[in-house]
């Protein structure tokens, strides 16, 4: 019994060292920009860099569009599949899992082949078109997480009975969807949104190959040309991810305190 507990603690310690030591090292290195003493100069340098602000702002905007359009695609789809086409659920689940097994580079090349300047829908001809393409590709990337988050939230409420109750009270589809269903799957929507946000903020392949000024390519650029700033940026990127995960936990906990009975 004692040996088992000791082994468990040992496993935890090894895991913690494996994950935490590089982080501590990176953080420590990011503070060494000023010779002979610790300082936040690297962070100051990053935050004052105009390119950082531009790329960070651009990625934030793209994340926002991805979340909004992703939700508009995923919530009605998950709702309809759950309500009317339950036999299609395995198919839809399979489709939403595809972005996990198809490399991002394959997806983006597929997009470029379909929507290049000489195609039937030349989205890459304009900046707006390319940005749209980037949002669509981010939507594809986040689909596995977004769909599952929303679908799980829908599983917690009796979608079919709530829909019938609303219908019997005279409600039409838009009212049912936006007033009865959407607010009750908000925790799932927010969970999906935070994961999407974290993915989009660090995404490199799509943005780089579509040549858009996003945060991911900026991280790579800084990493290749500077010494201390990349460490500061790595810590900032981690902080963004942790913040998203923390908010996700908070939303889940909030949902647990208000159980849904339908």
């Amino acid at each position, binding site marked *: 019994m004692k040996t088992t507990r000791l082994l468990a603690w040992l496993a935890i310690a090894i895991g913690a060292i494996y994950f935490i030591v590089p982080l501590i090292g990176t953080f420590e290195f990011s503070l060494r920009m000023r010779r002979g003493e610790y300082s936040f100069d690297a962070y100051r340098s990053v935050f004052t860099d105009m390119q950082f602000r531009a790329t960070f702002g651009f990625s934030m905007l793209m994340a926002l569009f991805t979340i909004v359009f992703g939700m508009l695609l995923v919530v009605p789809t998950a709702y309809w599949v759950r309500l009317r086409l339950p036999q299609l659920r395995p198919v839809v689940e399979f489709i939403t899992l595809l972005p996990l097994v198809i490399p991002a580079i394959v997806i983006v090349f597929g997009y470029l082949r379909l929507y290049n300047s000489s195609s039937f829908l030349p989205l890459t001809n304009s900046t707006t078109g390319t940005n749209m393409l980037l949002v669509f590709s981010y939507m594809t990337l986040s689909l596995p997480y977004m769909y599952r988050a929303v679908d799980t939230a829908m599983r917690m*409420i*009796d979608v079919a*009975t*709530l829909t*019938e*109750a*609303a*219908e*019997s*009270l*005279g*409600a*039409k589809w838009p*009212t049912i969807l936006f*007033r*009865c269903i959407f*607010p*009750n799957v*908000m925790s799932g929507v927010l969970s999906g949104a935070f994961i999407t946000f974290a993915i989009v903020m660090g995404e490199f392949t799509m943005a780089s190959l579509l040549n858009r000024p996003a945060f991911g390519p900026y991280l790579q650029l800084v990493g290749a040309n500077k010494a201390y700033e990349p460490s500061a940026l790595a810590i900032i990127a981690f902080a963004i991810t942790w913040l998203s995960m923390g908010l996700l936990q908070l939303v889940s906990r909030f949902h647990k305190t*208000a*159980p*849904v*009975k*339908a």
Partner: protein
Amino acid sequence: MTFLSLSHLQKSFGPVQVVNDFNMDIEKGEFVSFLGPSGCGKTTVLRMIAGFETPSGGTITVAGKNQAGLKPNQRNIGMVFQAYALFPNMNVFDNVAFGLKVAGRPQQEIASRVKEMLGLIKLEHLADRFPYQLSGGQQQRVALARALAPKPQVLLLDEPLSALDAKIRVSLREEIRMIQQQLGITTVFVTHDQEEALSISDRIVVMNAGCADQIGTPAEIYNRPATRFVASFVGTLNLIEAKVIDPAANRVSIGDQGVTLREPVGPVKPGDTISLALRPEAGSIAEGAKGDTALTGEVISSNFLGSVVRTRMRVGPSVISFDMFNNPGLVPPAAGDTVTLRFTATDLLVIRD
């Protein structure tokens, strides 16, 4: 005058016929219960009235208007579900107001109607609570108020008490009946609980395998079951095998004891076997018990059930149960005792399949 008419209603799911030639006329203000076991088609009929299922055949008319082609949100039919189905994101007030808001009623009218409805279910003080802050009984009362708020033509109750505990079930069913009578709303209630159906209905439809086996008042259903299924499903009933002795004189034998029935035994020959039914509460073994018919048998067991003691005795090939009201001085017969059960011949019913 007929208000809700169900005519030759049919419903099949693929090759499975769930409802088969169902006919019923319901008067305005009537409280009708669909009673039957799981899978008998009662909920399917209810869902067809609500518009959630499309009939494979037949017509549904409400106030003379054919409901064919009308969506559920166009029918003005209120429905209460077994699972409450309150909107979790809305408080009690908003839940009750939902139908009125959807109909675009003015704010003032909504507020006064919601207040009236909450008064009806005696939950005015919980208007700000969310569904998860209410008990099951309170949630179901809110669901009832929500269904009634838009003044529906018909109220459908789909096993609304099944998820509640026994005590609340009894009080809520009485409350439902009281509100229904107060508002005079035509109501269809689906249940598999015979006690519920018997206690609150004007009429009961006993359903079996997609058909209405019998339609009648609770007393008719209980006292004069039309089929073997109704007899076995509603209440506890002794089914007794009897041999016909003289069809013209309605004379039969149960074991080796002769009995003369009051009702005709039907088109049978001497020697044929027929089924008779006798309620456990119909007879008595007490000294000086009244009754023109008697059966003597050997006691198999006596079980104490609280308000009654139920004794089982063997008469020929049949086992007959009878009830005795409990009292502190009651000494139930022991296994092996020989007792004589007296009852009136009219209590012995001939069961036709």
